[in-house]
């Protein structure tokens, strides 16, 4: 791939929980109960550390203790020099499935390789409104999820503003818009493809890591 390297972020990658209406509504009945006690007021974020970053086309190893992973198809907003959005990139935000959102999800989301990225940045100039994004997830060619970004709880600009209330997103940082409900599960041997009109598709294959 010399001459045309895959896009890789220069800064920190942040994910956003509960930013799709269906995802939010699915949890709503539990939100006033323990351990949460109340619905979230501010955006709920997490970090996808550098060790998770997997370029387009690469194999992603599932830990030997895990038989399935959850596919979190999303679009990341890449922050420009002026704090604006420089571009958008497809992301495959993998998680070990977990039922509780009380404690930070480090061991579920920061596993080596657990973020497929790219392959290419789509210039923000080409995008009229991120609410028009429509993403499809295919596993071994079969359509598993269809995501409509008009269904965000906090649309892109609102999310940026609300996150900016408490932290600065630096040039090169990436903020994911969220992952919708109905996230497909995938297993070792599966080929995951995430595509959207106007974007080069992102694909990764899952392999089982040998037992340590």
């Amino acid at each position, binding site marked *: 791939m010399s001459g045309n390297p895959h896009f890789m972020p*220069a*800064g*920190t990658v*942040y994910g956003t*929980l*509960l930013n799709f209406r269906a995802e939010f509504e699915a949890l709503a009945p539990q939100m006033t109960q323990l*351990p*949460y*006690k*109340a619905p*979230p*007021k*501010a955006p*709920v*974020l*997490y*970090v996808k*550390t*550098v*060790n*998770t970053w997997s370029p387009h086309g690469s194999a992603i190893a599932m*830990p030997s203790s895990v038989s399935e992973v959850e596919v979190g198809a999303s679009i990341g907003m890449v922050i420009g020099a002026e704090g604006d959005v420089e571009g958008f990139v497809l992301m495959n935000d993998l998680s070990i499935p977990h039922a509780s*959102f*009380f*404690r*930070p*999800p*480090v*061991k579920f989301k*920061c*596993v*080596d390789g657990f973020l497929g990225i790219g392959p290419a940045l789509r210039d923000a100039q080409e995008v009229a409104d991120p609410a028009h994004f429509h993403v499809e997830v295919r596993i071994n060619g079969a359509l598993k999820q269809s995501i409509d970004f008009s269904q965000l709880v906090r649309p892109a600009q609102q999310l940026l503003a609300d996150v900016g209330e*408490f*932290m*600065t*997103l*630096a040039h090169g*940082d990436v903020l994911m818009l969220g992952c919708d409900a109905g996230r497909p599960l995938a297993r070792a041997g599966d080929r995951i493809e995430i595509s959207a009109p106007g974007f080069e598709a992102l694909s990764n294959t899952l392999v089982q890591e040998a037992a*340590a």
Partner: protein
Amino acid sequence: MKHARVIFEGREHTGIAHEFNGQADAAVRLDDGRVVPQEQLVWLPPLAPSPRPRTILALGLNYADHAKELEFKAPEEPLVFVKGQSTLIGHRQHTHRPAGVQFMHYECELAIVVGKTAKNVKRADAYDFIGGYTVANDYAIRDYLENWYRPNLRVKNRDTCTPLGPWFVDAADVPDPMALALKTTVNGTVTQQGSTRDMIFDVPFLIEYFSRFMTLSPGDLILTGTPDGVVDCEPGDVVICEIEHIGALVNTIDAA
């Protein structure tokens, strides 16, 4: 050796701790040989810039007394969260207290700096992967705690809220990282005291635990949690987090 990263006369320098006016570590001997007192320098986090963002892992409730103070039972496995780089500042810098909040506290913590790539490291080998240590002050603004991925980023990942430094101390120069006295003063009054020997999950455990599911890289940080004794801090307060053999990290609160 105690290493610093500073700005002097508009240029970034590295340097090492140097005696000044009879006081150990009161100055820095810059890479060009000049010796400059601490207060004439602008201090940066004492870590070499890295081409990719470093991973910053932080422990909550890793001292039994602090867990008790916060009315939690001690955790059965590490309570871990991740911080972004933009929260880091250096020694002698200012941390913003947002307007209208009721409870913002420091947390004096031993910070491990990873020295070489670590994956599936066994406890017995863990120290081989540590490059050195520094002091972190991992501020929390408790007004913003919500029970979603708690401690959430609005509490823990704010700009200026993680002072780090003054020094990066080579691992070889720290006799026993699990027997270091920690102390915090606010405006000269001691408010927090403890010892790293009281950690629930000690340093070798943490290296083994993290490296089981994630590869740690040189320059990555692990902030190991704080003991009992956190109090509210107001604008104007000078907070000094000190760890034996590592250094005294000075920080001032200001109004955002």
